[in-house]
């Protein structure tokens, strides 16, 4: 029975707008379906390698260990913990983020040399994360209520990996304060509802960046994760590549790891 309803829903969201559904309703319905399919991973552990590349092709590397805790709630989004392994001078630094839907997010930074936990302003959504082409807001949990949506069209998926698939093209508009974007356009495939490409439009509504998602693999048969993310900045010709390894979902992460008072014992 559940399967039948599910199939009906998929048919519903992927069918033509025969039911006089507005593009806004359709965009939201597709995003909710994608969200619903990705729920239930509980918590995760993963290692991330970040390679920054400037317009001359010079590269520098950062390595991080990420932990995330899934929260299914109307008020609070996921919690995430980023622990720096390199560059060597920032090894042991940790950043803890709690996302919320209606109130500002909470963020704490642990500075290992001083053994100091500093609560920092979360207003810095559009700033660069550790000098990369990713802004803080690009890496925070992409929770459904953080945007409004508009379905644009269907077209073949734009990445090599998904070129056999058809994609929904959905425009989304940030609803949270201090975003550096007026809008984003995403390509979500119709088979697994995975985002394959995301275009970012800056405050002047210029197409500033494009994020490519690749090397999707499923965990426990249903939780799909991209293992390679490439962010291109069209204005500066800089590029940042994220490579993920050793994903663990339902990893039984101790919840106290997400307590700001416990940041000092990570290293």
């Amino acid at each position, binding site marked *: 029975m559940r399967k039948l309803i599910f199939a009906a829903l998929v048919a519903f969201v992927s069918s033509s707008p025969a039911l006089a559904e507005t593009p806004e309703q359709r965009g939201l319905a597709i995003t909710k379906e994608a969200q619903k399919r990705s729920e239930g991973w509980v918590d995760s552990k993963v290692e991330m390698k970040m390679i920054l590349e400037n317009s001359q092709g010079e590269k520098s590397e950062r390595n991080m260990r990420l932990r995330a805790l899934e929260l299914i709630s109307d008020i609070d989004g996921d919690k995430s913990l980023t622990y720096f392994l390199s*560059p060597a*001078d920032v090894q042991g630094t940790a950043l803890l983020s709690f996302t919320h839907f209606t109130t500002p997010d909470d963020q704490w930074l642990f500075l290992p040399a001083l053994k100091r936990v500093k609560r920092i302003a979360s207003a810095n959504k559009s700033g660069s994360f550790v000098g990369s082409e990713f802004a803080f807001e690009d890496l925070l949990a992409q929770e459904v209520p953080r945007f409004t949506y508009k379905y644009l069209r269907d077209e073949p998926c734009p990445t090599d990996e998904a070129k056999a698939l058809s994609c929904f093209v959905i425009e989304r508009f940030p609803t949270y304060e201090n975003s550096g974007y007026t809008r984003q356009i995403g390509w979500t495939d119709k088979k697994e509802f995975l985002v394959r490409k995301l275009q970012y439009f800056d405050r002047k509504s210029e197409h500033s960046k494009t994020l490519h998602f690749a090397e999707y693999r499923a965990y426990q048969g249903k939780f799909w994760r991209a293992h390679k993310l490439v962010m291109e900045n069209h204005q500066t010709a800089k590029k940042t590549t994220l490579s993920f390894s050793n994903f663990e979902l339902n990893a039984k992460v101790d919840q106290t790891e997400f307590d700001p008072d416990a940041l000092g014992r990570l290293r």
Partner: protein
Amino acid sequence: MAWTAAAQATPIDVSGYVAAEVRIFPAEAKFARQHENAFSPSMALQPEMRWKPDGENTLTIIAFGRVDADDSERTHWDIREANWLYNAGDWDLRIGLGKVFWGVAESRHLVDIINQSDLVESLDEEDKLGQPMANLNVITCIGTWSAFVLPYFRERTFAGSDGRPGLPLPFDENLATFESSDKERHVDYALRWQERLGDIDVGLSHFHGTGREPRLMPTLTPSGPVFAPHYDQIDQTGLDIQATLDAWLLKLEAIVRSGQGETLFAATAGFEYTLYQLFETTYDLGLIAEYHHDGRGSDAPFTVFNNDIMAGTRLALNDQDDTAVLMGAILDVETQTTLATIEFSTRLADGWKLEMEGRIFPYVANGSVESNSEREHTFELRVLRYF
């Protein structure tokens, strides 16, 4: 045997840095006993070792040493940390030499009291000596509770007789006196509670034991007058609050201390406001202002922060090299004596870092307590190699 097998399976993580430093003193020393080298080089090494045999246990050892060309007291070494941590999730226990930071302010750390300051390293009281401790932390739904038993006291370090920046009289730690007959073996206790109440973080702490700040007692010795440190028994209650509102951080630290003459009250209140992506660049500019009040009398250790205003800026370029510049000035409201500071840091290459620091006195009032420091402008240039 299983334990041995596990031990072999978990490698010991070795890291740390080696640093080459030159300190520059552009003005001649005030006192004849101080060295006269405008360029004063030194080398420092901080090796760190960590071993995690399993998810609960961590062994940490951090040593520090410096060899200084001109100041024999600055040629020194210390074990910053040598402790075992047992992490049970809701609670943890740390035993050994450890380091703890309390507080929220930037220009003065009033509430922070567990570790002794290593003033021969830096006058900003952010370099600390390893403190012997047993520390239990319990995370509960009504905040985190921390209890400390501190069985041994570390004496504060100062520059040597010939060192710079220096004191008006040479400092002689061998003449240290203590209120407690147990001297440095007096067992100190501390308790702290901290909790998050929405946008507000609150910490409340109490310390009972040997005060970390010595009174400097002028003492006549056969080789001339010196400062001998005297360490009192004190009780200090501290409060620290930070409200985090959009791009604003509002901060308050306050202490009440008894045991050094009349009960004293001191407070630091201020804010940090950040302008993100200044003028549509990637730069962030933080504006910092703090006011210091300290009501201590002449029976308490001397402080420069009796009635002072600090204003500063923190510029972060958010580039690949994490380049940042911190500039500030501390003005004494009564005497107008001013200390200006600048700190710059950037990554030169992977594993290499450059740091520059400057402390200058643009104006020192005649007869003020800082008048002994008026020529002690100091610039530091440091290259660090992390491993």
